[in-house]
Structure formats: structure tokens, C-alpha cells
């Protein structure tokens, strides 16, 4: 090979190399742009979600004059704690909180138990009328809650339960959604697992309790969170089912702050922020449960 040819070959190789480097750079730039766009979008969504909360938090930390200042002070310093003190001293807040927690916890525990049992029966036990029961439950899902309020009230009233905890706890237990959800989860469990359990000498309840429940734990946690938040935030039914001060739940209580001689936005915001605390704690605790051991390993690969 001549020297010339060799040189041109080297030059050619170098230019190919340069081209490759250029391409890599362009690709990198493109990727960075994509990443930037993605982060901008995520940032915007986060802002939209967080801003209202932050605004309420801000309002709770300002006195009544500062709340209406324009432009608003985004970092009130020093924070004003008077609103929180007022909520605790001038309202029945702690009692409302207790009522809400008591009702929501009771409903959640009972309902997770009942729904998972009903779900097991609907999924795995071949009883007469199973299809009819399931269809009825599906149909009930389509009835809007508002349409049920009046008949439900007269029903509960006829039992003489208005103004008792029973009025708050019993009606939500009848909601079919949880049992339907549980049925779907339990249907997904392999039939051979129950068969193995049956051969191991377990009765129907033991299969439910020792085999099925541990395996649907993630689903139970999801259901529990849905039920608890649902109860925590329910408003209409607790409003009409109770009139006694001792039975008022958080949502009704906080709303009632408005009724007592105009609106104190600072007080209102502080009570709203405080009522979020239990829900936030619940989410943090249960977050880890969502990652519970999955079904992998029971089935073929």
C-alpha cells in the first residue's frame, strides 16, 4: 500500500470517528432537551397539586389582616400560631377528631373483614344464587349515593338510631364496592392453592384466614385506605344523621365554623390543616405495606 493511500485511509478513519463523536453529542443534547421538557411538565403538575395546600397552610399561619394582604406574603415570618390556638380552645375540634377517627377506624376494620369474607364467598364458594347476589351488588353500585340519603334516613330513624354512633357506622358497611373489589382479587388466586389447603385439612374459614388473607394483603391495604379516607371525608350523611354536638365529625364541625358569625379564614384554614394530619400519618405508615410480598412463586414462573 502506498504512503498516500495509507494517509487517506487514516484521514478517512478519523473523519468517521469525528462524525460518530458529533452524532453522540447531538444525541446527548436531544436527550437533555427531552429530560428538561419532562421535568418541566412534572414540575407544573406538582405545582398545580401542591399550590392549594400551600395556600391553606399559609392562611393558617397568618392573622386575619395578613390573609387579605395583596400581594400575598409567600413566606410569613414569624408564623402566627394564634389560629391553631383558637381552634383548640374555642371549638370542639378534638371531640370532632375523636368522632371521625372512631367512626372511620371502626368502619374500616369491620368492612375490610366483611368485604374480604364476602369476596371470598363470591369468588370461591359455589352457593345457590351466587350470580344473582353478585349482579344485585353490581346494580347497587350504579345507584347514586344522593338518591339513597332520604330513604336511608327514614330507615335509620325507624330503627331509632339517629344521633348514635350506629347511624354513622352501619350504613357505610352496606356499600358493595369493597366486596366486589375483594372478589376480583381473590378470583386471581390459583384454585390449586385452596385445594392444597383442603388436603392439608383446613376448613373453609381457615382457608380464608390462613391462606387467602395473607396473599391479598396488598389489596386489603388498598381497600382500607379507600374506606378510611372515604369515611374521613364523608359529609352529607354525618350531617343529617347526627344533630348532637357530641357526635359531630370533623367535616361537619369544620364546615360549621362558617356558620358561627361570619368566616374566620385563619381559623378555618388551621382546622383544615389539622384535620389532614391523621390521613397523612396513615398514608406514611401504609406506604410500606403496598410493597408486601407478592404472589410470585405460588404459580408457575
Amino acid at each position: 500500500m502506498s504512503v498516500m493511500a495509507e494517509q487517506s485511509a487514516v484521514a478517512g478513519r478519523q473523519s468517521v470517528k469525528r462524525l460518530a463523536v458529533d452524532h453522540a453529542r447531538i444525541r446527548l443534547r436531544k436527550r437533555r432537551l427531552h429530560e428538561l421538557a419532562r421535568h418541566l411538565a412534572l414540575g407544573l403538575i406538582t405545582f398545580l397539586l401542591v399550590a392549594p395546600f400551600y395556600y391553606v397552610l399559609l392562611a393558617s399561619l397568618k392573622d386575619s389582616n395578613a390573609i387579605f394582604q395583596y400581594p400575598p406574603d409567600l413566606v410569613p415570618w414569624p408564623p402566627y400560631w394564634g389560629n391553631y390556638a383558637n381552634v383548640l380552645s374555642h371549638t370542639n375540634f378534638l371531640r370532632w377528631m375523636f368522632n371521625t377517627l372512631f367512626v372511620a377506624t371502626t368502619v374500616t376494620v369491620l368492612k375490610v373483614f366483611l368485604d374480604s369474607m364476602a369476596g371470598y364467598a363470591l369468588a370461591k364458594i359455589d352457593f345457590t344464587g351466587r350470580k344473582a347476589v353478585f349482579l344485585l351488588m353490581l346494580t347497587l353500585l350504579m345507584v347514586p349515593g344522593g338518591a339513597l340519603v332520604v330513604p336511608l334516613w327514614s330507615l335509620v330513624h325507624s330503627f331509632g338510631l339517629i344521633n348514635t354512633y350506629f347511624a354513622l357506622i352501619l350504613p357505610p358497611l352496606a356499600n358493595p364496592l369493597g366486596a366486589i373489589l375483594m372478589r376480583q382479587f381473590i378470583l386471581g388466586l390459583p384454585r390449586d392453592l385452596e385445594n392444597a389447603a383442603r388436603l392439608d385439612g383446613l376448613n373453609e374459614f381457615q382457608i380464608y384466614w390462613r391462606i387467602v388473607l395473607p396473599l391479598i394483603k396488598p389489596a386489603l391495604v388498598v381497600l382500607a385506605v379507600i374506606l378510611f379516607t372515604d369515611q374521613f371525608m364523608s359529609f352529607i350523611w354525618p350531617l343529617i344523621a347526627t344533630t348532637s354536638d357530641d357526635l359531630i365529625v370533623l367535616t361537619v364541625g369544620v364546615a360549621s365554623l362558617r356558620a358561627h358569625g361570619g368566616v374566620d379564614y385563619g381559623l378555618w384554614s388551621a382546622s383544615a390543616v389539622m384535620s389532614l394530619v391523621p390521613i397523612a400519618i396513615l398514608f406514611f405508615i401504609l406506604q410500606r405495606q403496598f410493597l408486601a410480598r407478592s404472589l410470585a412463586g405460588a404459580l408457575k414462573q
Partner: protein
Amino acid sequence: MTELHVSANPDPAIELIEVSKHYGKAEAVKAVDLAIAPGEFIALLGPSGCGKSTLLKLIAGLEELTDGEIYVGGKLANYLKPSARNVAMVFQNYALYPHMTVRENVGFPLKMGGVPGEQVKARVEAAANLLQLSAQLERFPDELSGGQRQRVALGRAIVREPLAFLMDEPLSNLDALLRVEMRTELLRLHKRVGRTTIYVTHDQIEAMTMADRIVLMNKGEIQQIGSPSEIYEAPANTFVAKFVGSPPMNLVEGRVEHGSGGLTFHGAMRLVAGKGFAGLSTGQATLGVRPEHIEIVAASHPDAIAARVDLVERVGSDSNVLMIVAGQAPMIASVDAAAALREGDDIHIRIPPEHVHFFDAAGRRVAGKGALQ
């Protein structure tokens, strides 16, 4: 584990009398009679949907029978709960409890049976030892390989020391190599533990290699019960003939008539049946011959039948030759791969009368080598 032995007792370990199972109008199992001796390894073989798994579930008590009687250990088991039948089952998908360790999985049936903790521990460890699972006792099922899961499932059955093992296609989820390995291991285990085993499979090789007796089923009915060699050498009907053996037996339709040399089969080819076909009579018949018995001969051979090679499949040392015999009947011959045959070759074959089977118009075996006279 306690000493296990095969009893010389002629009483069957498991006996089925006229057992039927219907789902609505569909008959999954039709009037099955079967007696299984203690210590016997029985393979329930058949195509999918033939009722073999349903039959196993009926024995286990996981399905209720429509009609008939099931005796386990001499006791009527029709109304016994699955756990009271003293049988252990190994499932196709292993059915291990995912939330329990290997130790808990294997010990679970004992714990449920009220066996004291110390004893559970000892028996679980003995079973784990037998199955080489001792190192995996504290692991969860999803941390195990397919073969290990399979062993755990076996361990859970063994630890109960049941009267019989019921296995529902236990190897079908393993890859080919592991399946062969586990097959040998299962057989060794059976020899060692000596318990009655009913093994459901659709794999004829598993059935042929492992079973003392094969129960071949189709459409809910037993087609034939017999040792692997009986099933292979004297298939009771055309279904069995076709199902067992790979490649399957060649079947040729035709008629048997009186000829100059005695009874003669007229079909795609003419074949003088000669002596030794005691049950054979004139009329519609199907002739059967296994691929490995077909011989390739010179055109000058007195029995030569002309054939044209259609396709040659090489399978290691043998070749499966698909051919059209006498211009009309497709047949397969297994020949030495050294016989270099090509597509389109014109060859001559011989069907040795001593290896021929005859089936009547209804497909039932009437005569042939090793006939059931």
C-alpha cells in the same frame, strides 16, 4: 421417617367402582372401574380433557362424584373430607403457599393435623434431607428454582406419610432437561418410599418409563389398563394404538376376506394373514403396524410393496420416513438413518405378518402379536 414397606395384602389400596362425574350434561368421567394395589405406581394417561385430572380430583375428594364408589384403604371415601382420605396430592403448579417458607410449607399439613412442634421439625427435616432441600428450608417459594419448588411440593406430600400419592402432571412445568432428571428422581423416590402412586400425565414417555401399570383414558372412559409393554405391544383398540408410540402406529383400513393362502387383508396393500391370527374373521378391518417394524426390501422380494418417499425426518440415529404406500396409504417407517433415503425415491417395503395388529370395524383389537387370547 418411619419404615415403609409394600404390603403383600391383595386388598387394593384404592378401588374405584363405576365412578362417574358429570358437569351438567358433560360427562367428564364415565363409569370407571379401577383397583390399585398397595405400592403400585399407576399412570393415568390420555389427551387433555380425557378426564384423567378429574378422576384424580375425585379420588382426592376435591370434586364430588356423580355416581359410584371410591374406596381408599378399604374404607368407603365418598363422603370423607379430602384431608380425611389419607392421600397427599402434588399439583401441576406446585401450589406452594407463597407467604410461608419452605419449612412452613412442608410442615403445614402436620401442624394442621395437630402434630406436636418437635415432631413436625424432625419430620420436615427428614423429608428435606431426602429431597436435598435442607439448605433451602428458610427460603420463600419465589426464591427457589422450578426444580426446587417441585421438590418442596413433593416434600409436603411425603411428610404426611399418606396411604397414596396423587400427582397431577407434576413435571409438566419444568424444562425438558430438568423433567428427565426429576423423572428419575421421582422413580427413585417411589422405590424408596414404596407408596401407592397415581400419576396423571399426558406424556406417554413419562407413563411408559415410570408406571407399573398404565390406565389409558379417552373421553372419560378407560381404553386399556395394562403394563407399559402390554399397552405398547397389544393395544386394545385403535385409539390406544395411535396414542402410544412415537411416531404412532400406522393404521390402514380394509377388508379381511378368504383368499388362496388363508385369510387375506385387502386394503391399500394385500397381506396374507396366515396363521397365528386366531380371532380374525372376515369383514371390515383395520391393519396396524408400528413404524419400527416396517422393513425396506429389494423390489425382487416376494412380499415387496411399492412405496414413494414423501418426507424424511432425521431423529438422531433413526429417520422417520413418511411415505405413500401403494400409491394411496400414507405410512411412517422408522429406519436406520444410514439408509440414505430422499424425498421422491421409489422404494419397496415389507410388512412382517408377525408384527401386524388387526382391529375390527369398531376399532377393537381382534388379533395380532401378543393378542389377548
